[in-house]
């Protein structure tokens, strides 16, 4: 299912790339986004364990895990790679939940105009007073890769958010 979902936007990107710069079409990064929830289930040994299942219908108040899988399927190195993810509407970022090996994770509280680490983010009230930003103020999450992604490089970044 995940592959199919990724494949369709992939084709679109290929077509766009074909009409633009053919050479670069061979060096593309492919992305797959997946939303999951955790459920407690009994495994084959009869023990309770937390499993992740695809989110289809979610109750308000529940936490959703958003994972973005990336892979450089081309033949060239992808440089200056950045993955950006707006926190979806009706959802609140779960504090300290963003993950991403080899990336620097920053957040935006201004709709994606500027990004910084949590301790350097502030919001202002109507009278101009400055407050440290809270997780519910985050509008975007950004993963900036420290190293170029060589052909075949793949991995995932993720965050959790709570449905209001």
């Amino acid at each position, binding site marked *: 299912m995940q592959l199919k*979902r*990724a494949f369709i*936007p992939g084709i679109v*990107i290929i077509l766009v*790339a074909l009409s633009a*710069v053919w050479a*670069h079409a061979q*060096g*593309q*990064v*492919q*992305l*797959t*986004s*997946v*939303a999951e929830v955790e459920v407690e289930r009994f495994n084959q040994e009869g023990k309770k364990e937390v499993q992740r299942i695809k*989110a*289809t*219908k*979610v*109750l*308000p*108040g529940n936490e*959703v895990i*958003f994972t*973005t899988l*990336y892979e450089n399927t*081309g033949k*060239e*190195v*992808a*440089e*200056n*790679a*950045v*993955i*950006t*993810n*707006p926190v*979806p*509407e*009706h*959802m609140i970022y779960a504090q300290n939940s963003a993950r991403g090996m080899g990336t620097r994770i920053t957040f935006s509280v201004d709709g994606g105009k500027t990004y910084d680490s949590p301790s350097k983010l502030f919001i202002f009230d109507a009278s101009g007073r400055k407050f440290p930003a809270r997780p519910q103020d985050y509008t975007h999450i950004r993963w900036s890769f420290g190293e170029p*992604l060589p052909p075949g490089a793949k991995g995932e*970044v993720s965050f959790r958010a709570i*449905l*209001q």
Partner: protein
Amino acid sequence: MFRLKEEKKWRHTLSGLVGLVCATSLLLGITAPAWALGTVAGTVIANTATATYTMGADPTPQTVTAMDSFEVLEVINTVVVWQDAADVTVNTPQTERPLTFLLTNTGNGPEAFTFTYNDAMGADDFDPIAQLIWLESNGQPGLQTTGSPADSVLGAATPDLPADGSLLVYLLSNIPSGLGDGQTGRVSLTAAANTIGAAGAAAGTELPGAGLNGGTAIVGNSNGDSEAVGTYVVAAVNVQLTKSIAAIEDLSGGSEPYPGARVTYRLTVQIGGSGAAEALTITDTIPTDMTYLPGSIVLDGTSQSDAVDVPADQTDFNVTSANTVTVELENTVAPATHTIEFTTTIN
């Protein structure tokens, strides 16, 4: 020899107070906090990730996106809150006195509700007799059972309330006769979600096909229903009148009731309970073998005239009623005591 006029009027003194209570409840209704579970059922939540990168010497950023989405599940939840600012004052008896409740759909999908009530509760002094339920529908504060437009009598169920939507509900009860001042009667109102299987179900119960667009609905923490209790309190005034002879002065300086002796009568009016005695009038007709001594009426220690000259004073003799002392105490808020004295001569 004396009688209380317009006795019935005292029993209908509290309509002004009722209006105030209803107006207060409307304010409460507007400011009631929202308990609803946020995002509306059926909303599609989409997450989009975007990667940008460059390749080789070309500085043009390449962009790729990926998206996944899910739908918000429907939760059925409700809360009912009694809205009257204080116990609703009633007379005894009284018909169709409303208690005001606020029904809120705290689920995240549209839901209609049905009602049941219990008017035979314990922990009170009397059982009101619940009659019918009205719904606020004409946008005017309080219950209007007449007029154009009036509010609406509840049908089988309320209209669909949207997520977070509220509705003021009036539960009307009759109040029995013969109750004492301060006695209370409680009535509970229960609203149940109209979705089949929701009312009374355990939190977390899944109702396949019962949700928005045929999806699954989940029963929330209210178990698909909610109950609130309202209280009536009897505010009955009672008036006690006692008549006594304050003094007798005979012609020889003694106190024997011979012809020619002056007899001073004292009427003591005690207004007890709560509320107000409205248009309270005390009358006392002079006996046939006695003659009223002109100008002798004294109300609470102050001499009064015999003419009808309200507001200068509230008493007269032989004007309002022939050969009768009349004292207009008008609207008297309980508790209060008034003393009336007048003098007659034995013929």
